[in-house]
């Protein structure tokens, strides 16, 4: 889309959306938020960027192919459940590690969900915008 206003603002807004999506993801444990809606926010940021600068530029910004991002997220989520095997508790049991800040397998699961949603939805949105260009 050829609009000076959009082109000027898009990088800023995209950056803000992605930062906010990370915030929403991380606060998701006890407050509204979580990986899914965080991922949706980030994916809409990517879509906005693609609107302003074209799909090719958005793909370059992501560096990895969207589906690769989704796949990595799926692996992270599935393996965070497996961590409980080391502690002899059932699959997907939340494990907490206090090293100054609280790290947990619940969080890594949510980060995995975030990546799955970012990847899958960016893939869909970018493909849709791509056919729009032609």
């Amino acid at each position, binding site marked *: 889309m050829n609009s000076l206003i959009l082109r000027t603002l898009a990088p800023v807004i995209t950056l803000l959306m992605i930062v906010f999506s990370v915030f929403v993801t991380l606060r998701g444990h*006890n407050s509204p938020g979580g990986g899914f809606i965080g991922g949706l926010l980030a994916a809409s940021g990517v879509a906005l960027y693609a609107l302003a600068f074209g799909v090719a530029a958005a793909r370059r910004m992501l560096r990895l*192919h969207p*589906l*690769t991002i*989704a*796949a*990595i997220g*799926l*692996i992270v989520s*599935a*393996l965070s*459940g*497996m961590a409980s*095997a080391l502690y*002899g*508790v*059932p*699959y*997907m*049991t*939340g494990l907490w590690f206090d090293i100054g800040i609280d790290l947990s397998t619940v969080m890594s699961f949510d980060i995995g969900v975030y990546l799955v949603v970012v990847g899958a939805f960016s893939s869909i949105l970018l493909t849709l915008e791509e056919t729009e260009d032609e």
Partner: protein
Amino acid sequence: MAAPAALDLTRVFVADPAPEAWLVILPVVLCITMGAALAAIRKRIHLHAPLAIATLALLAIIDAALLYRVSTDGPMTMVMGRWLPPFGIAFTVDVLGALLALTAALVALAGAIFALSDIDTNRRRYGFYPFLLFLMAGVSGAFLTGDIFNLYVWFEVLLISSFGLIVLGGEREQIDGAMKYGLLNLVATTLFLIAVGYLYAIFGTLNMADIASKVGHQSSTLPLMTLAVLFFAAFGMKAAAFPVNFWLPASYHTPRITVSALFAGLLTKVGVYAMFRVLVMLMPGALETLAPLVGIVAILTMLAGSVGAIAQSDLRRTLGYWVIAGIGVMLSGLAIGGIQALAASVFYMMHSMVVMTALYFLVGLMAMRSGSFDLKSAGGLWKSSPLLSAIGLCLILSVAGLPPFSGFWPKAMLVGAALEKSHWWLAAAILTSGFLITFAGGRIFLLAFWRAASVEIKPARLPVMSVVALAVLTTASVAAGLWPEPLAVLAKSAAHGLYAPETYIRSVFTEPRP
């Protein structure tokens, strides 16, 4: 947020599982993780096939170990996140689930090997192997879960991945088939979801063991008939039972032959499995009232499948109708009721998974030889490839239910159980449909194998690995036909687990239920 001080954790959390309980969840985790890993290395296509085959082989080993544990020690449970059931999602495996999961894994392994020659690099780039592994995650999850909403989730997983598989390559005909397949299956899963909603409204729980123990002593006051009919409709659609079977022959002939083979072997059987699990184990009272209806549906499904097959000249369409006929046979076991009949259905289900997949492989190789799937132009295969002809004869006799192949024993058990309960009409339908399948199979054998080739086609070399995959499945069918005892015993204990779910319930709830 401070937790209430006097929280007794033993009332919230389950005890820590034994290490071997991980076998329950591993099949699903393995398939998901490896499927995602293959999707992540989408640029290195040459790694896909060996990794997928290794994963599926490992899956088969895990399922075999699981079956061994479950058949010796009774059902096993793992509750996600350590929450006390029914709040935590439970994976509970009994003999039925483990048996079908193992069969599915072996069929998928054969499919992955057959795909080496059938799925070209371009289609692999679209993600054949990742989709296959996700499909197996869905199938294993459906067979192993002990929670009915979780069952719905696995249905969705396998619906999405099968949707990916059916459009692989994106030919016009495939999109058409995918539309019919996807739309009707979406309707079925939605119906399933609505039924799950009702179930939750009635019982306040979705854990199968919990429902099974609650149904026992308050079945007369609840609207269980409505619920049972809803579930029957939803799973019947999934399984392609009579009035709602038209999507199957309309879509199964469109994708690559490996994909058709996997669908024929796995997908409809998951529908039948869900029907067994829900109707027999959770709503036995309603099923008793429903049995005549199930019987009529079973007869019509058998006849629709076996008559429809005769009218086809496209070999893949013929097989599509045979899949339907097999579903009818499994449903007739449900209609007859009793451990003997249900065991026969379970046995038949395993037979059908292996033999229908093998038949699709066979047809794929036949088409490779004679150039098309059309029966009109086929011919001369007896001369050009005797091995393929011999395998073809075995499989056709097996699907028709003639001795000494694997289709014979479950059908004999079913007919015996039907006559014992004086359901002579079901027995007659089973025998009639067997006769009609023999007729259609005989026609295929006569035209494609015995008839001299009408036009001289330079036959392609058959890929060795594909022939091996087909031969192994055929050997399994012959072996099950010659030595049916162990399978019959396992099937009987699977059916017993459905009719008397006490051990299943006890594996989830260690204390007796109130």
